[in-house]
């Protein structure tokens, strides 16, 4: 029941509203530019029954999930170290401040040269973008720990590792997961970008290919697929946050 109330109902309402606005727009504009929502939805639902759609969906999901795992797995520990140790922070923080404002997508040519045109490059660029957000959020979260929580652990005789494990790590977890969840949308956006070239797999490719053929219904199949992927990633990180931070 709670699942239906909290998760299903809001999505159903949203879909209805989007449908109505879309329908009005489609009538006002022309059918050639914007297909009627029922046509697009029909195309999407039929696509859901084809293995071709799921093949593209799986390719995109693999890239996004791998990127999230790698980006989070590297950035989260570094964020904790930077937030908890002055020495590490002093050493790394100029590097982060200098590279943080650079839009990471502009590094794409460099990454393609280094790692080739395959999946690996696509995953790297997404995890780089995601990783920076997780790193900064985690670092700032750890810096914001109340000193009395650390005092209380130290007063029980904890050594450096115990302080890290009992204090910094759990204090950082919600920040790391929130950054992951908020940026799952960014991952999907970048996914579209990196799938628009040098691949014949993935939802991004599906959209670009349909666009090239002026098949607008097929294009919306890809767009809906992206949306579905975004929702799954968002709810997935939400779920991870809930089970690993039950106090939050």
């Amino acid at each position: 029941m709670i699942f239906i109330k909290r998760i299903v109902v809001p999505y159903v309402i949203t879909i209805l509203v989007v449908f109505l606005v879309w329908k009005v727009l489609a009538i006002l504009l022309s059918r050639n530019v914007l297909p009627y929502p029922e046509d697009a939805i029909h195309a999407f639902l039929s696509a859901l029954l084809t293995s071709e759609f799921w093949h593209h969906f799986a390719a995109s999901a693999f890239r996004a999930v791998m990127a999230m795992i790698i980006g989070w797995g590297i950035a989260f520990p570094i964020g904790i170290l930077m937030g908890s140790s002055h020495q590490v922070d002093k050493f790394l923080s100029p590097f982060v401040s200098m590279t943080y404002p650079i839009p990471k997508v502009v590094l794409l040519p460099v990454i393609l040269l280094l790692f080739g045109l395959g999946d690996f490059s696509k995953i790297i660029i997404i995890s780089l973008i995601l990783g920076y957000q997780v790193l900064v959020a985690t670092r700032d979260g750890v810096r914001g720990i109340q000193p009395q929580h650390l005092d209380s652990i130290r007063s029980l005789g904890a050594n450096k590792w115990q302080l890290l494990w009992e204090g910094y790590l759990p204090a950082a977890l919600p920040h790391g997961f929130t950054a992951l969840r908020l940026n799952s949308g960014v991952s999907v956006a970048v996914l579209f970008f990196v799938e628009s070239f040098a691949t014949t797999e993935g939802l991004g490719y599906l959209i670009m290919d349909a666009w090239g053929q002026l098949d607008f219904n097929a294009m919306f199949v890809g767009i809906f697929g992206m949306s579905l992927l975004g929702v799954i990633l968002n709810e997935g990180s939400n779920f991870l946050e809930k089970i690993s931070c039950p106090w939050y």
Partner: protein
Amino acid sequence: MLTVSHICKGFDSKAVLKDISFQLDARETIVILGPSGCGKTTLLHLISGLEKIESGRILIDNRAISKPIPDVALILQNYGLLPWKTNLQNVALGLKIQGVSRKDRNTRARKILTDLGLAGRENDYPSVMSGGEQQRVAIARAYASEPRLLLMDEPFSSLDAITRENLQDTLLTTWLGTTVPYLLVTHSVEEAVFLGKRILILSGSPASIHEIFDNPGFGDIAYRRSSSYYELIRSIRHRIGEYW
């Protein structure tokens, strides 16, 4: 059991504590009474080993203190419970840090929580507990490691009057049962007289001990209703009027 001799401490060249000396015996309790911001917290942090002393010596059972040890439990202002741990995990944390097995530490933590009237609340998080309940958990955590000395930093100052008296009773009852000596700092004269066998008046900048009061009536829950209790409060009030 605790010997503090001639300790001085300052931060950024500003002296906070000056030449503090006193002794706490194994079957005794001391309350340090002083105004807010006079250095009481600093003094407790020094004794617990969280901060380094500048000069002087702190000995516990003739051993010098240089870092926190399990024999000394500290209850921090605002309880110091970790929001990411359940009450049971908070109480068992000291034992976990000492390497006690999960089964043993949970058994002991559960028993102490029950003794303090918190049976059934083991798996709740501190955020859903009232201030008084959180303070009980903090007391449970302090006793869980079976410390030889308990340090408390204004433990009851953020509680309402009734809850505060209840917890003061709990603390005194626990002391009567275990006689683990404690050192408590507070700015409340009433609390000092109810909980301290001796009362040290700390004041000045840098702070030093101005006066020591003996409290012969200490150790009885009914003391609060006696006239000698009020007389001592009155005479301390009278004396501190001169320094605060």
